[in-house]
């Protein structure tokens, strides 16, 4: 197992942890933060491939991560705003309770 694979394994595990959190917890905030962890795991991949890539010229990986972080920030802001909006209507932020659109 070389360093790149170590990095990828790290990111896979982080992804799994985030996924587990997003699936297991009922609190919407924690679920959102689990999603953030998953995004971070993806970013780790970008950096890892950039770091160990054969062609070192373009900084595409780094730039991709920068954009990804920006999008994550937007996502967090909107997500938290949604949580607050849900809380205002339902007085709860438990995700299993937020099933008004249930089919």
């Amino acid at each position, binding site marked *: 197992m070389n360093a790149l694979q170590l990095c990828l394994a790290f990111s896979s595990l*982080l992804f799994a942890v985030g996924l587990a959190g997003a*699936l297991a917890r009922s609190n919407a905030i924690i679920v959102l933060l689990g999603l953030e962890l998953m995004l971070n795991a993806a970013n780790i991949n970008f950096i890892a491939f950039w770091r160990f890539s054969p062609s070192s010229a373009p900084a595409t990986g780094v730039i991709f991560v920068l954009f990804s972080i920006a999008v994550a920030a937007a996502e967090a802001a909107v997500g938290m*705003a949604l949580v607050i909006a849900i809380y205002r209507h339902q007085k709860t932020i438990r995700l299993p309770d937020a099933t008004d659109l249930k089919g």
Partner: protein
Amino acid sequence: MSAALAIVALATLGSAAAAMLGRSLLRSIFMLAVSWAGVAAFYMWAGAQFVAFAQVLIYLGAISMVALFAVLLTRQSRDEASPPPAALRRAILAVVAAAGVAAVLLWAVAHSPLAVSGSLAPATSVRQLGFDLMGRHAAALLVVGVLLTIALLGAVVLAADGAQERPGDEP
């Protein structure tokens, strides 16, 4: 080299797991902050300083703040705990699903012919990054800027209380 990576990875994973398992919401967020800092440390390890600082600035400085605010603003929420059987079932399902994903990903990582070339990190100066962002990726940068602006406006609209400002409350 790999030892440093292992330490960073273990700290990150450990704090992330602790955050996902913890009972207290606030503690979870603090643990997550540690885990994000760990990811930043990974970036440092990989030689992407700029990204590492951006990660700290945005995740520790902004996203954790937003999360903390959300927690404080929703403090009167009804009790978090689900009835035990449902929660347990969900937890088991979650762990199974996550373990499955992890297994698949790890298998793929382990069996892919991933070649490592060059022991040195590609040298990317901040100046070069700036030129790239403003040059080749200018359109994407514009789009991301617009996205962020609109997302923040949307967040304000969503989170704003519908109530009007009371008259006579000016300073």
